[in-house]
């Protein structure tokens, strides 16, 4: 038994309990290092004893991925919370992995800037989790995802060494783009300790318009018209029946976020209203666009047996939503769907644990045949039993196995949680 207390101090070590479980697997120990050096020491000890480690921030997103094959140490990085360097005039920020996004947002907000990534639970989501789980929200439609905003990363690798990739400048092609390896890798190839991002000016005004539609398909088609209009959406969501918590009635909707200075937003709103009128659809103006965006973003983490994430082409969003709803009906259950019209990512929330496996098995093959994917993004542990949460990662799997072997030869980082049981 490793003496973790000797490495990080007795106050920062605890035995794992039910609250620390990752997909029902309870870690023997919860270790909370207080410095980069302590993270390295812990990782070295984990490697030496062939333990298995899952890195975590505040634990808000540990329901993603497959259940870990082994789990000895839950490494919590929630003591590494510094905003290391915010250069407002350079539009960059360097921040430690354990810093919650809400705190980072407050620091950036004082300069009128934001990290334009808006995953749910900003108080509980840390920078490390943001990168490791490749989290995003509605803003991704116009701002891109983690991969587009991350410019540098520091990671503790399986040897306990600190490896830096990228840098602190917005344009940089020196060496391989190592930070990309860790985006969405669920901590399977190293422990993220620090990240540097591009930040942007936050639009001073953010409003939204809900365009009420009869069907999900109509909403998806409307959204594509809006995408290609001069409304220049800041974000663009498609809600199926029940997808919008407080939508206009029971029907579907295209919901468009508009951001900028006042006159830009006013012009964009008029543009959306013109589009709505030309299609014979009712529009509903929402003053607090940011609040509506946050509510839509929270869809991914609302209480559910599982939230599935289907990825398809933007043009197929409507039909995928309809197929998900129809398949659920056939199984006498209900799904609620919300999609990002610009990226083609459709989320479907299921309330019944037993419906998850059959729905995945029914819908996934057809999606994959057409170049799409279906991932069980989040689920309660029972809903993951007997279900392949990831699906087919495609022909790159052999290279992915090679990457895992190269960067985690001892299998200490989150074994079993990633694609292909990596």
């Amino acid at each position, binding site marked *: 038994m490793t003496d973790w207390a000797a490495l990080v101090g007795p106050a920062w070590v605890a035995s794992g309990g039910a609250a620390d479980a990752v997909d029902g697997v309870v870690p023997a120990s919860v270790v909370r290092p207080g410095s980069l050096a302590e993270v390295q020491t812990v990782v070295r000890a984990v490697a030496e004893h062939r333990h298995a480690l899952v890195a975590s921030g505040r634990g808000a997103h540990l329901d993603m991925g497959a259940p870990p094959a082994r789990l000895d140490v839950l490494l919590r990085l929630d003591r590494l919370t510094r905003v290391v360097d915010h250069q407002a005039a350079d539009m960059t920020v360097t921040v430690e992995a354990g810093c919650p996004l809400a705190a980072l947002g407050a620091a950036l907000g004082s300069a009128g800037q934001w990290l334009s990534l808006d995953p749910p639970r900003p108080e509980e989501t840390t920078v490390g989790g943001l990168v490791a789980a490749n989290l995003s929200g509605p803003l991704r439609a116009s701002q891109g995802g983690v991969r587009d905003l991350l410019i540098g990363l520091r990671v503790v690798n399986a040897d306990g060494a600190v490896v830096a990739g990228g840098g602190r400048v917005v344009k*940089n092609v020196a060496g391989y783009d190592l930070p990309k390896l860790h985006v969405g890798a669920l901590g399977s190839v190293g422990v993220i300790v620090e990240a540097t991002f591009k930040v942007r000016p936050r639009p001073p005004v953010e409003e939204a318009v809900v365009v009420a539609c009869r069907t999900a398909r109509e909403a998806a088609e409307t959204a594509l018209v809006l995408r290609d209009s001069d409304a220049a959406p800041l974000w663009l969501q498609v809600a199926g029946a029940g997808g919008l918590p407080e939508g206009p009635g029971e029907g579907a909707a295209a919901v468009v976020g508009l951001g900028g200075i006042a*006159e830009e937003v006013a012009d964009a709103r008029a543009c959306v209203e013109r589009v709505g009128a030309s299609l014979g659809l009712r529009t509903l103006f929402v003053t607090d666009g940011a609040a509506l965006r946050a509510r839509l973003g929270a869809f991914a983490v609302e209480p559910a047996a599982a939230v599935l994430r289907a990825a398809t082409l933007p*043009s197929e969003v409507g039909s995928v939503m309809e197929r998900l709803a129809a398949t659920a009906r056939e199984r006498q259950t209900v799904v609620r769907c919300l999609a990002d019209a610009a990226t083609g990512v459709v989320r479907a929330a299921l309330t019944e644990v037993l419906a998850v496996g059959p729905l995945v098995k029914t819908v996934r093959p057809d999606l994959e045949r057409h170049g799409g994917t279906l991932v069980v993004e989040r689920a309660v542990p029972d809903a993951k039993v007997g279900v392949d949460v990831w699906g087919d990662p495609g022909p790159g799997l052999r290279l*992915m196995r090679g990457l895992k072997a190269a960067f985690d030869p001892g299998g200490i980082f989150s074994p079993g949680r990633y694609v292909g049981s990596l």
Partner: protein
Amino acid sequence: MLPASLVARLRAVVGADGIVDRPEALLVYECDGYTLERAAPEVVVLPRTPAEVSAVLRVLAADHVSFVPRGAGTGLSGGTLPIGAPVMIGTSRLGRIETIDVRNHRIVAQAGVVNQWVTNAVRAHGLCYAPDPSSQPACSIGGNIAENSGGPHTLKYGVTTNHVLGVELALPSGELVTLGGAVEDRPGYDLVGLVVGAEGTFGIVTRATLRLVRVPAAHRTLLAVFDSVDAASEAVSGIIAAGIVPAALEMMDRLIVQAVEAAFKVGLPTDAGAVLLIEIDGPAAGLDAHAARATAVCRTAGVREIRIARDEAERAALWKCRKRAFGAVGRLAPNYCTQDGVVPRTRVPEIVRHIAAVAARHRLRIANVFHAGDGNIHPILLFDERDRDEVARVRAAGREILETCVALGGSLTGEHGIGVEKVAEMPLLFGPDDLVAMTRLRAVFDPEGRANPHKIFPDAKVCVETRVPRRQAAV
């Protein structure tokens, strides 16, 4: 020397017209846009299809022969210099645009498709391919992917990696593997993100799925004349601080302005310290307000004169100054070498002062035209190739400038790549553990190290012939 039987097997794959092996024909391939070093391959192979690329690589794999990929040869860091690689594989004949999906803003293009062709193919639909390096009319998509190319519009639109959704990669073994694709969010590691910018050391990209963006509805293009680089830099910082994200924010210093004026007679004041080209784009509403704010910022910074393009012709004229700046440099000296470094954008005045000091110390003339909004500098070192001592001073000055970029918190290269040019400088930026991680990554794709060897990493670099350049670097 390659065995004749190997060349015969390559000829069998690509046909006689796909093989270049006469010494005089190989001269073209002995350097790219980086002309300070030269080395000719023994043979150049020009496959026509991804399947032929794969077949060529299988022939080479059987004999463990190293190779270097080459696109249009416009690279500026010597990435296509064949060092320890007798075979060059050119992608110029992979020139087909395979599918255009207007509804989904996607296009599939083969590696040899010229960057500009992509935008040309979709412009009628109101779409374009955003990354627009200055070599856009010549450079290829495959080369752009290898170098993760940028351009003047990256401040708002990002670089190549932000616009590549999928690639087909011919691994050094010859295996063709499709990574990513038209649909985003495929589960698993971001292999596409790793391949982009790998400088051809993971294999050869044969085709790519690219993201298209809408052509902006309107532009406001401003040209602001300042007495000094410091004043212009202050305006750059002020524009950013005002919350404006221009599509482009380009700076030209006095030497460049003088050259441009001499070449094109556009009416630029030749005593100006610096000129800023500012472009704001997007929906028409609000553009005038943004332009007015940018103008106010420039006035606060002590701008001497501001011109706003009133129509597309005037906009084109202003851009002509910037895009042809390199051509105009030809008037200043027989030869030039373009450096590529990055500093945090607030450190631009410092690096420009440093460059001036380096120029004085090494008795060189250095002109500056660069992407100020990104902090991506392009000092142009002027020289005469017949002056061997001056050539040596150009090299020393380039190294000093890069050292200072790194010391200021920047990078060795923003868009040209490491290639052979900056191999020796990599340890300035990365420690041994970082470099070990990168070589581990490389080995996953290319375990034998046969794809574009001796690039990026400071290994025992094989001696290449260094001689004075015979032609200009084109940017």
